[in-house]
């Protein structure tokens, strides 16, 4: 069990997401960087999609009320346990009373605190992700506050190895365009309905992630994307990654807490395999978009899967190795 000891906002319990309830108007929620979540869980021997705490604002401090193994993944920054620096994408054993402090990241934007066995909150509609609009799921359906206590499903001393880490997704799956982090996008239904100059600018320009960007959506700033003619779109289901272009031409990328349906013209969709890159793009940073095809999008999913499987396999080998004392 841990206790939140810093004043905090916007930190939520998230797992891999809530599927199967789109038909009730319930979006998926889930971790903005699902790879960081998966790695943290694999390091702890948890199911890959177990719930963790997503931390978007810093500093963030917790005290371990019980012995518990934990992993800190995602954005690399100043993380310490009782003042001792913690390496990125690392698993460690915490003892009762120790304080974990997560400071501002030097790269990336979201940090994941994973606990042994996963964060133990009741699943709602099949998931432990926080559904903020509906005020359910996660920890009491809301963002975490100072004083909140969260249980781990497997507290105590870790049976598996601790004090090791893995090569991060940013290293293993790096993608840049002209030195700027890039994401692949598949054109959507209304793509051809935007003027050609706008379409070309979308692929050629850097886009800035503005301050009005969060789990609901990322508002981008750049050359306005203009339609050839006004469009009224019927409401339809959407998924995280859909790039909507409202009046004014500044695109909004729907993210994990977006409405699961929308009626604005769609330019394209950031592919599922690259959503984690967006999840780690800090406010104020620039990104680029790369046009890709459906088969390429599936290949990208395969690349992610291969990386996770490789990591899982090495961690298993490490578990089996006769333990050496430190």
């Amino acid at each position, binding site marked *: 069990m841990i206790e939140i000891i810093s004043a905090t906002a916007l930190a939520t319990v998230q797992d891999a997401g809530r599927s199967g309830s789109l038909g009730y108007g319930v979006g998926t929620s889930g971790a903005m960087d699902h790879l960081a979540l998966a790695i943290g869980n694999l390091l702890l021997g948890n199911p890959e999609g177990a719930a963790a705490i997503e931390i978007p604002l810093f500093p963030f401090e917790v005290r371990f009320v019980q012995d518990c193994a934990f992993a800190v993944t995602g954005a690399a920054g100043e993380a310490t346990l009782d003042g001792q620096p913690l390496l*990125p994408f690392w698993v460690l054993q915490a003892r009762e009373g120790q304080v974990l402090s997560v400071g501002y990241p030097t790269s990336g934007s979201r940090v994941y605190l994973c606990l042994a066995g996963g964060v133990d909150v009741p699943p709602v509609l099949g998931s432990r992700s926080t559904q903020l609009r509906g005020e359910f799921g996660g920890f009491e359906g809301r963002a975490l506050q100072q004083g909140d206590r969260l249980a781990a499903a497997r507290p105590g001393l870790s049976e598996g190895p601790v004090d*090791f*880490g893995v090569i991060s997704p940013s290293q293993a799956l790096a993608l840049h365009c002209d030195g700027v982090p890039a994401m692949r996008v598949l054109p959507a239904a209304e793509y051809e309905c935007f003027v050609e100059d706008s379409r070309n600018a979308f692929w050629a320009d850097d886009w800035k992630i503005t301050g009005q960007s969060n789990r609901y959506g990322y508002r981008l700033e750049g050359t306005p994307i203009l339609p050839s003619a006004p469009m009224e779109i019927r409401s339809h289901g959407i998924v995280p990654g859909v790039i909507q272009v409202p009046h004014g031409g500044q695109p909004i990328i729907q993210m994990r807490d977006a409405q699961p349906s929308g009626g604005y013209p769609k330019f394209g969709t950031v592919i599922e395999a690259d959503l984690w890159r967006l999840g780690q793009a800090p406010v104020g940073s620039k990104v680029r978009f790369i046009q890709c095809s459906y088969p390429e999008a599936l290949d990208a999913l395969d690349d992610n899967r291969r990386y996770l499987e490789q990591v899982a396999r090495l961690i298993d080998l490490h578990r089996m190795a006769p333990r050496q004392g430190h």
Partner: protein
Amino acid sequence: MSNEEIRQLAQWLSEARLGGVELQRPGMQLVLKRHLESVAAEESSDLPTNANQVPIRTCGLGQLLLSHPDQPQVLIAEDNHVDKGQIVALLQVGELLLPVHSPQAGHISRVLLQHGATVGYGEAIMQLEVAS
């Protein structure tokens, strides 16, 4: 060393994409080579026998990293003070990163190998000067 441990060692070699390893223990010598040109394990360089100088050794094989791939700064540099147990380097085996801890408190007097060097079991990577 059991057959299971040898099998596991061979698997580690394959994951780490290393050519081979030589191990010497009392009463045993083990040489493992892959179907690549064999890579001889490095001989330990001559180290001073000064009682205050303690070698920091690896407890595994892999690629030596002097900084974490996600961080710009080195973990430790020559003349830096280290606490007992402090991580001074990392061993990369495939995507895995294993810590090399300082066995005692002291100062790093020498960094013996370069970032990226292939290292074997029990290889000295740094020299630690301990208080007498």
